[in-house]
């Protein structure tokens, strides 16, 4: 009896949660204007590729995907490296001021990004970074959350390996590359997947830093399609294409997401 209720709940909620994605896929293959819902939406087998053709021929959409790729991949790679190094330094190195600095880092996490965006906008305008990739990449080359995750993880690892390597005459850099980095790969993967999702899905920051259509990432691009009262089918084709990278990352790294979310907390 209890089992039956559990399965009914499971399938009911699974259907609810999958519904938006099914609508997205169906919509993307239908040549349909915004305001129409007829039974034909679900039951006709008239699948068309016009929306995809339209969006891929347009050119600007591919540019948006390219922009998103640039402002996502660069921070992901550099965060995976810098968060690990800095996390390692906090966990294993002793130097003056270390604990105070770490405390300051932890305090700064509480500052909402919305507070920093206005002064950053003024700064970036002065740097000439508005409508350029720098505005989205340079501030994101490392992250406090990633440093925190790596530090926590490394603190739980005994110093034995390091000590042994030190006796063999290895320097800090060798220890880091040959011992620490391989050990941290699971957490580094978590940092990377988080950073990917955050940057790929970010709307607020690029909305402010990118004002020219050709510099939009795909989130801002899709939002501009949405507000122009566009064509539902084309919008859904765009959504589907922009969803593919997220979905692939999710498919392969699901474990790291759920672990990471337990460790930190995603908005």
């Amino acid at each position, binding site marked *: 009896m209890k089992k039956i209720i559990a399965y009914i709940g499971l399938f009911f909620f699974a259907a609810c949660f999958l519904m938006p994605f099914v*609508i997205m896929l169906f919509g993307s293959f239908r040549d349909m204007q915004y*305001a129409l819902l007829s039974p034909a939406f679900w039951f006709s087998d008239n699948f068309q590729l016009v929306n995809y053709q339209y969006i891929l021929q347009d050119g600007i959409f591919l540019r948006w995907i390219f922009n998103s790729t640039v402002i996502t991949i660069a921070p992901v790679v550099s965060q995976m490296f810098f968060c690990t190094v800095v996390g390692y330094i906090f966990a294993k190195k002793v*130097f003056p001021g270390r604990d105070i600095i770490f405390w300051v880092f932890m305090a700064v996490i509480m500052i*909402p990004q919305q507070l920093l965006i206005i002064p950053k906008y003024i700064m970036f305008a002065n740097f000439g970074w508005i409508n350029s990739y720098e505005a989205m990449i340079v501030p994101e080359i490392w992250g406090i959350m990633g440093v925190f995750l790596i530090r926590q993880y490394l603190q739980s690892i005994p110093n034995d390996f390091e000590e042994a390597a030190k006796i063999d005459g290895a320097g800090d850099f060798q220890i880091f590359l040959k011992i620490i980095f391989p050990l941290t790969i699971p957490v580094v993967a978590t940092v990377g997947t988080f950073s990917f999702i955050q940057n790929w899905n970010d709307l607020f920051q690029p909305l*402010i830093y990118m004002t020219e259509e050709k510099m939009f990432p795909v989130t801002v691009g899709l939002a501009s399609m949405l507000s122009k009262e566009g064509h539902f089918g084309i919008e859904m084709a765009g959504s589907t294409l922009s969803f593919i990278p997220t979905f692939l990352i999710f498919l392969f790294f699901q474990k790291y997401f759920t672990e990471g979310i337990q460790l930190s907390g995603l908005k």
Partner: protein
Amino acid sequence: MQNNQELHEQSHNQKQQKQKLPFKTRLKKNWEKYAIIYIFFVPIFIHFLIFQVFPFMFSLVLTFMDWKVIGESEFVGLEHWKRFFEDDLAHRAIWNTVLFSIYYIIPTMALGLILALIINSGVRFAGFFKGIFFLPVVTSFVIIAGIWGWMFQGTADGMVNIILGFFGIEPQLFLSDSDQALMVLAGLSILKVSGSTMIYYYAGLQSIPNQLYEAARIDGANSLKMFWNITFPLLKPIHFYVAIITTIGSFQIFDSTFLLTGGGPNYSTTTIVYYLYEQGFTSLNLSYAAVLSYILFFIILVISLIQRKYLGKDTQIY
């Protein structure tokens, strides 16, 4: 006493010896010891000062200025802060955000808990279904909002209106109705976020020892009783943690308002961050937007401090 003095002299001598080393050698030793810090940590720290600490302080300065995008900026003192206390729209925005939290926090927690209970009840393919429930969390707001807006069209041929029609309910206006719009947006956030609250609850459920349930079963407790007397109270630290995270998240809500309602109708979905965005980047009132961002910061700070105070005792879970 004497001993102390000797020790003192000794350490003094050592110090002198250290200082007697030639400058170059000392520099070299220092470099060898701290190279990784000089090369990686110092630049990252400078980056931190430039992109986190400086903007934070600069933002405070901005609130006392009348910052012009073009032209000379001037010092105006507390004028913008005063304006905030007289600005009905700002108060409305805070109220809307609180209202949004009320619609959003409890359902998100409840749904997350229900999903975790189902997943944890020993159903087959639990990992697969966990993935389905988590999928909206990693999906961009833009995608889900586009679909949500289509489902909740306020016309008779909107999908949700058609479903409501089966139950004999009149077509609703949804996003065009100032009483309903915020609820529809909260619904979108519930769908988007409950996958992550599920993960927290799932971890919490797994940490409850099985013996407790076995003991209760021997005493003849039924499932409902076990849930209310064992599971629910033992999840207390998780309830608290999830409540704080969702509260902070709900005060930062922006994307769905921006995408679906533009703050309307009749300002009923103008949240703090949306109002901040509008003031700062549509009306180019950067200084006033900075005041609003500080208000947001104070609210979040208070919530975080409550978290520190109460969660401090239960941190062994995370």
